C-alpha cells in the first residue's frame, strides 16, 4: 500500500485520470509499461481503453525500441516505468536522438520523500541526471494539482516539437511505499 502522500488521500487519486485524458487528447496509441504500483490506476485505464493498447514489457528498454517502431509505423506512444527502470534503458535511449522520434515517458519515483527501502535510493537519486545526460528533458509533478499542466507541456513538446521528455511523478505525489507487518 501507499502511505505518506502529501495530501490526505482517503479517496483514490484522480491525477491518473488527468494523465489518461491528456494522453487520449494527444492520440497516444501504444502504451508499453512495466507494472508499477504508482502507475496502476493509469494502467487500468489504458487496458480498458478502446483506442490505446497497453503492452506489458519484460524490461523497460524494450519500450524504447517499441516506441521507435510505433512512430515509424505512424503511431504515438508513451512509456510508463519506475525510476529504477530508467537504469535499464540507458543504451536503448540512444535510439531517440538517432532516429529523432517523439519520446515521452512517465516515471514514478522511488528513493525519495520518505522512502523506506534503501535499495531504491541509488537509482532514484540519479534518475533525473541519467535522463538529462541521455538528452531527455525532465519535468516534474510534485502534487496532484500540477499534474494536468505538466502533462500538457510534456506531451506538447514531445509530440509537437520532437523534444524527448520525461515526467517524473514524485514520490511526494504518489506516496511513499510502506510495508507493515
Amino acid at each position, binding site marked *: 500500500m501507499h502511505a505518506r502522500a502529501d495530501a490526505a488521500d482517503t479517496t483514490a487519486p484522480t491525477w491518473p485520470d488527468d494523465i489518461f485524458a491528456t494522453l487520449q487528447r494527444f492520440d497516444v*496509441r*501504444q502504451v508499453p509499461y512495466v507494472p508499477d504500483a504508482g502507475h496502476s490506476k493509469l494502467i487500468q485505464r489504458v487496458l480498458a481503453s478502446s483506442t490505446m*493498447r497497453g*503492452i*506489458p*514489457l*519484460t*524490461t523497460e*528498454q*524494450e*519500450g*524504447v*525500441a*517499441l*516506441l*521507435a*517502431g*510505433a*512512430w*515509424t*509505423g*505512424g*503511431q504515438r*506512444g508513451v512509456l510508463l516505468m519506475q525510476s529504477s527502470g530508467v537504469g535499464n534503458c540507458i*543504451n*536503448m535511449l*540512444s*535510439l531517440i536522438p*538517432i*532516429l*529523432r*522520434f517523439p519520446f515521452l515517458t512517465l516515471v514514478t519515483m522511488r528513493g525519495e520523500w520518505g522512502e523506506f527501502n534503501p535499495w531504491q535510493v541509488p537509482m532514484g537519486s540519479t534518475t533525473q541526471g541519467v535522463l538529462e545526460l541521455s538528452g531527455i528533458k525532465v519535468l516534474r509533478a510534485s502534487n496532484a494539482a500540477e499534474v494536468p499542466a505538466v502533462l500538457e507541456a510534456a506531451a506538447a513538446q514531445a509530440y*509537437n516539437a*520532437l523534444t524527448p521528455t520525461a515526467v517524473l511523478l514524485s514520490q511526494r505525489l504518489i506516496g511513499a511505499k510502506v510495508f507493515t507487518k
Partner: protein
Amino acid sequence: MSKANLLDRRQVVSALLADRKDVVAIGGLGASTNDITAAGDHARNFYLWGGMGGAAMIGLGLALAQPKLPVLVITGDGEMLMGMGSLATIGLQKPSNLSIVVLDNEAYGETGGQTSHTSAAADLVGVARACGIADSRAISTMAEVEAFAKAVHDLSAGPRFANVKIDSANVERILPSRDGTFIVNRIRGDLGFRPI
C-alpha cells in the same frame, strides 16, 4: 558439429526479400543489416546500427501500428539473445503480421567470431515457442526459407519465428545509410506519413 551443409546468409536473406511486395524489413545490429542491404536498398528497410537487442521490439511497435502490413525482422543470434525477453512480450501481444528470422551462425561475427550461447546451450526456437509464438521453426534448407518467405505475407497466422542455421563465413560488408532520421523518415514517407 559439421558446418558443411549450413546455409549462406546472403542467399537466405535474398530469398526472404526476393518477392517482398509491401514488407517492411528490419535488420538487427550487425551483419544482418548488411545482408538486407545486399539484397537491395529499399525505402522500407530499417537498418539498425545501434541499440543492440532492440530489433524485435522495433518490429513489434511497427507491426502493431500497421496491422495490415507484413513486418519482417531479420537479425542475428547475438542480437536476439540480448533481447530475448522481447519474445515473451511478442508472444503476449501476438501480432499476426510480425515475423522474426534469426540468422544463427553461433558466433559474434562483428567482434571477432566469439562463440554465442546458441553454439552449445540456447535453443532460440524452443525459447520462442515457450514464449507463446506457436509458429516457431528451425530452418536448415533453402526450401524451408522459401516457404517461410511466402508465409510472411499471410497476415492471419503470425507471429512467426524462424531460426536459420547459417555458415560463419565473413562476407563482404555492404553498408547502408547510417542516418537514422533518414531511415525512419524514408519508411514513414513510403507509408504515406508526411514530415511533422
